[in-house]
């Protein structure tokens, strides 16, 4: 990705169309690698969910569905603002690009804030795998050691997702500064478009994580 103010054709491309198509295909291939990256851990989660349905259901009932649902809404809204940012860029509305990128960054930060609150609650309630792991009100007939496995995977999956959000927030800051300087025009705004794909991808990962972690059998044992 080039970030100069005008349309820049790099020396090895024949024309701008070829350059743009290369960026776009490159981004899709990158997202494919991301799917495989998350896929490995999803696979592990599903395998153990299948093996230990009761203790996983009991452990997942310890999650706060309300906070999770709020985060889902926040993230979907951020995808909307991101799509609007790309749309504004295509129309060359420079001020609107900045506005929508800032809105996306704001919503992303709200998501991370709520996630921090959830993590904090897990520490307070001794639901973090390790020496201090003893969830309260645990059903007697359900194996507690498997709950540790659940929370290990919960932190692994949501942590991996959150780290993608944090990287995304950093890139958003960069884009906002650039957009503010008028770097993106109707003719050339490839970075905004490519980042949009990334942001939607991270959103979609959460769309899968939320039901898998929070919504299967949430009232188990209650």
């Amino acid at each position, binding site marked *: 990705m080039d970030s100069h103010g005008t349309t820049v054709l*790099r*020396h*090895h*491309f*024949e024309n701008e169309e*070829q350059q743009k*198509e*290369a960026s776009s*295909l*490159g981004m899709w*291939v*990158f997202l*494919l*690698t*991301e799917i*495989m*990256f*998350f*896929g*490995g*851990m999803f*696979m*592990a989660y599903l*395998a*153990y969910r299948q*093996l*230990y349905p009761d*203790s996983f259901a009991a452990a997942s009932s310890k999650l706060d569905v309300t906070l999770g649902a709020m985060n889902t809404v926040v993230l979907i809204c951020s995808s909307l603002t991101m799509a609007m940012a790309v749309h504004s860029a295509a129309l060359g509305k420079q001020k609107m690009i900045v506005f929508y990128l800032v809105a996306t960054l704001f919503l992303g930060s709200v998501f991370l804030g709520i996630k921090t609150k959830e993590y904090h609650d897990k520490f307070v309630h001794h639901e973090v*795998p*390790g020496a201090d792991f003893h969830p309260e009100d645990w059903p007697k007939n359900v*194996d507690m*050691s*498997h709950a*540790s*496995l659940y*929370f*290990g*995977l919960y*932190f*692994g999956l949501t942590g*991996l997702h959150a780290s993608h959000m944090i990287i995304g927030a950093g890139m958003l800051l960069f884009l906002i500064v650039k957009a503010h300087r008028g770097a993106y025009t109707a003719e050339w705004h490839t970075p905004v478009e490519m980042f949009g794909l990334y942001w939607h991808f991270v959103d979609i990962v959460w769309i899968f994580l939320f039901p898998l972690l929070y919504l299967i059998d949430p009232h188990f044992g209650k």
Partner: protein
Amino acid sequence: MLTATKPPEKSTNYLTDGYGLKSWLLTSDHKRIAILYLISITFFFFIGGIFAAMIRLELATPDGGLLESDVYNKMFTMHGIVMIFFFLIPSIPATLGNFLIPPMIGAKDLAFPKINLLSWYIYVVGGIFTLYVLITGGVDTGWTFYTPFSTSYSNTKVMAAAVGIFIAGFSSILTGLNFIVTIHRMRAPGLSWFRLPLFVWANYATAMIQILGTPVVAVTILLVAMERGLHIGIFDPALGGDPVLFQHLFWFYSHPAVYIMILPSMGVISEIISTFSRRKPFGYTFIAFSSVAIAVFGFLVWGHHLFVSSQSVYAGMVFSVLSYIVAIPSAIKVFNWTATLYKGSVTLSTPMLYAIGFIGLFTIGGLTGLFLASLGMDVHLTDTYFVVAHFHYVMVGGAIMGYLSGLHFWWPKMTGKMYPVLWSKVAAVMVFLGFNLTFFPQFILGYLGMPRRYHVYPPEFQVYNVLSSAGATVLGLGYLIPFIYLMWSLKYGKDAGPNPWGATGLEWQIPSPPPTANFDVTPVVTVEAYEYHAQEVVEVG
């Protein structure tokens, strides 16, 4: 045959276009990056070779007198890690592929030159971690990092080694990503998919495996790190975890990774067999699609590494059958190569000697793979020297022979210099003989029941082990000689000219060494690849 205008005589090429360390370390020229990779992987090849030498030295005697068992464990582990992750996986794609794919498709560079340079730096950082592990005491888990040993018991540098491999993986991903986009979007006008050189097809298939497989091993290593650092229980039976899950995740990448190593070599062989037979490859389309088929089926066979790891018999049967299926596209290639030779005008040049050696050794490696893919036979052969011999026939007899073949074929293009013909042929024969002497006895050892990864063995196995160690000496010399004469040729070699072999590819239509931009005018392709007419072969040297 090409409507491209021939580039005018120019004094500057990519080697003379800027001097000094900075012009190399900050380059975005795919050819220079290929040379940077070539230097780095050669370095790691010799490091890995030293470990191999220590292993063979130790095994020359049955009583394990040279190395402590702990040290021996580290030797074979470091040999595997260095050779696989830091030599074999980047070997052909990052050097020959990087150098040749843009000129082969009529492009000035890869689609993302800066990402290409970044991939080299990532590789170097991963390599530094590995060197750190090596200097501070090594790691003893085997290159496979099997749990629970790697997560709960080993007290060696598992974390640092895992981090090194994790990082190096991203270099491989970025190379694959760059190749896929380049091959899709940067082809010259008229260069349709079925006019592409088979080397490009092979690298395309390889890149598919790199982008789909490598992220999975990355996340697996992440899980091992979480398990080792935080004890979340994912591979620990005491907490309900399952060590076999690690094997599934690991081999989901690491079996296809074997095809990352062998597919580019197959691409090289297709080029060379065609060039030195003066014939269009027999069944071009079949060879092209067999590369893709190997990449696809390669993802469906990982379970054949788990026949004795508590996998269900049903799953074992499915994986056994799928493993047999991979033999079909592999055999298609071998048959098509030999059919290309038939009634061809064959020249036994140095690259051709390596290529013919490749076909023989790969065939043995592939056929013994069928033994291991059959459930009953595998129970007898699991974790014996039969397995060691099998995968060395594929990865050394196959992948490295292909790499050396390609290096000898394109060395005149890359450097503009010719190497001494006699010495190179002597070395090629030495590598072939030394290799067979090293690894053929290991099939017998394995069949007789000698397990792998032990530094002591019953005295009756000594004769085969001595043969193997003697062969390793010949093989080692066979690798050293090319290193010396190729270095020598840089200064003293004869000028090779643009097309010393009379080959047809686009890369041979430009000067040697190529100018920085490869082509002054983008070529327009109007014919299929490998249109050999009644050309005379020119032997140089």
